[in-house]
């Protein structure tokens, strides 16, 4: 199973929301579309689902061109940010409606709904309306509905952005187990780089409707192609130093270390995180974020340095990576 987008573009009036989007998501692969709001990532998802039509380019599912195929014929499952559960139906009917519409036999309908209710631990909530469920429970119902769709492609549109941080971390393994392990390609839209890194096999970073860089989480982290990607991936953010004209040097906070021979700094802030801590330092080249062990007690005379092999060099202006 595969999903291919070839130079897909979408514009409203004269502004291009998406341009030259080339994506290839293979069998069982999870691709995250990552970017700030308004970068076109949700538009890309709607184009794949058929809820919106591209102005140029082609979309293929399993090699078959999907342009012009209406969304109800595409066999695509989508989990919406808002969950989009039908408010007038109870959970069981919410899950069953699609099966009945698609002509599954009544026996099969009952069996499949019962088994998915059990898998998602929703059995005791089956007769409730969506309004009577918590956010996490609604999310599980939305996932269950997507699973019952038996799709060729899964599309997830910020599925966890309405949940609190703890619930998100609890749901991640569940999501991985249920959706990401199947043979279907998965496109996962998020603005949360941590979520993208945790779930996706590859990440495409979008900016202003164009792909800034596409690669595995590791590639993006270790060799960001542009300044934008460098700052978007990895928390705390990469430090940027203007040491020479025309050149920006980036260095990740975890690559800084205390060194008597290093750059002299002044401590201006400190966040203690338990196992580690984040120090905010001021030096002649600007402010630096530094991650170090939680046990370190920063003294008065702080000096830091880093290996030049950990440096990322970008051209000032265009922001592209140098070698």
């Amino acid at each position, binding site marked *: 199973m595969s999903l291919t987008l070839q130079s897909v573009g979408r514009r409203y009036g004269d502004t291009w929301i998406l341009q030259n989007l080339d994506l290839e998501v293979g069998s069982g692969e999870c691709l995250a579309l990552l970017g700030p709001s308004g970068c076109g990532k949700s538009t890309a998802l*709607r184009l794949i689902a058929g*809820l919106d039509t591209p102005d140029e380019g082609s979309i293929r599912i399993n090699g078959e061109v999907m342009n012009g195929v209406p969304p109800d014929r595409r066999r695509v499952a989508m989990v919406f940010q808002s969950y*989009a*559960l*039908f408010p007038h139906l109870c959970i069981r009917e919410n899950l069953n409606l699609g099966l009945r519409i698609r002509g599954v036999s009544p026996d099969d309908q009952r069996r499949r709904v019962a088994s998915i209710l059990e898998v998602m631990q929703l059995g005791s909530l089956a007769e409730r309306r969506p309004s*009577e*469920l918590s956010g996490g429970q609604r999310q599980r119902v939305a996932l269950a509905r997507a699973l019952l769709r038996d799709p060729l492609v899964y599309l997830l549109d910020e599925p966890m952005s*309405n949940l609190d941080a703890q619930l998100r971390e609890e749901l991640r393994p569940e999501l991985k187990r249920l959706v990401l392990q199947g043979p279907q390609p998965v496109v996962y839209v998020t603005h949360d780089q941590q979520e993208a890194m945790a779930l996706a096999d590859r990440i495409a970073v979008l900016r202003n409707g164009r792909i800034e860089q596409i690669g595995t989480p590791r590639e993006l982290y270790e060799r960001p192609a542009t300044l934008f990607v460098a700052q978007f991936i990895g928390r705390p953010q990469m430090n940027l130093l203007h040491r020479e004209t025309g050149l920006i040097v980036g260095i990740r906070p975890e690559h800084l270390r205390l060194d008597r021979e290093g750059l002299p700094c002044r401590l201006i802030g400190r966040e203690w995180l338990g196992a580690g801590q984040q120090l905010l330092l001021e030096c002649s080249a600007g402010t630096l974020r530094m991650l170090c062990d939680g046990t370190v007690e920063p003294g008065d005379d702080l000096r830091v340095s880093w290996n030049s092999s950990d440096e990322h060099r970008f051209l000032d202006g265009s922001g592209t990576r140098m070698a």
Partner: protein
Amino acid sequence: MNRRQLWISLLLLWSLAPMLWQLISSFTTTAALVDGGVPFLQRWTLIHYRQLLSSDPPFWRFLLNSTVLASASTVLTIALAIPAAYGLVRLPQRWLRVSRALIAGAALFPYVLLFLALLELARSLNLGNSLLALAIPYSALSLPLALLLLTAAFEGLPKDLDDAAKLEGMSLVQRLRWVLIPLIAPATASTAILVFLFAWNEYPIALTWLSRSEQLTLPVAMARIAGSSVYSVPYGAYAAATVLGALPLLLLVLLFQRQIVSGLTNGAVKG
């Protein structure tokens, strides 16, 4: 009684007193209606109702005519307005705004100005003296208001719900049947009541289209009762007709009351 209750009581009195007056009049003898000196126990009678129901054609015939006509108009209007409203909402914003302005114009147009033209149409199309044919102009005249109310209802639905239904494999008709129409049921119910009321109360078109007495609708029949004599006004009979004419509407509102409860879309999206 605090201030609020006082205001509510005054408002209730303001709107209910005329109806109460009619109700009392309908049970009062003709003599007592014009003479306050009749002793209390001798004022009451059922004669007005008896007369109404034994006239030819009996009064229930007009009630039936109006019910059939108003129901037909309502069904026709809603059946046309729901798909039309859905289509309007899916138009590009600019077109929607223009169409809405035009529809609002049509809704505000004083329809009485049309009745002569409509009568011409009825003549040339041979629709005169046919009760159900009246449902055609009635729906046409009710459609603008129904469209305005139902487009507002469709706009109020989260677009994600329609999209989710599409991805579940539902065609347009299936989406309307299983998702969209159930969700706008409260708006549909209130729209239906307004359309029904219009058809129930409509006078000039019914007066000109219908002349055979067994075809008459309630307003026309009532006007005939009121104007049946040059020398007296039959207050009692008229009041009884008013009471009987109001009963089906009361029943209708009681039946639909539950449907009009809103808040059905709560929890569709993050709440």
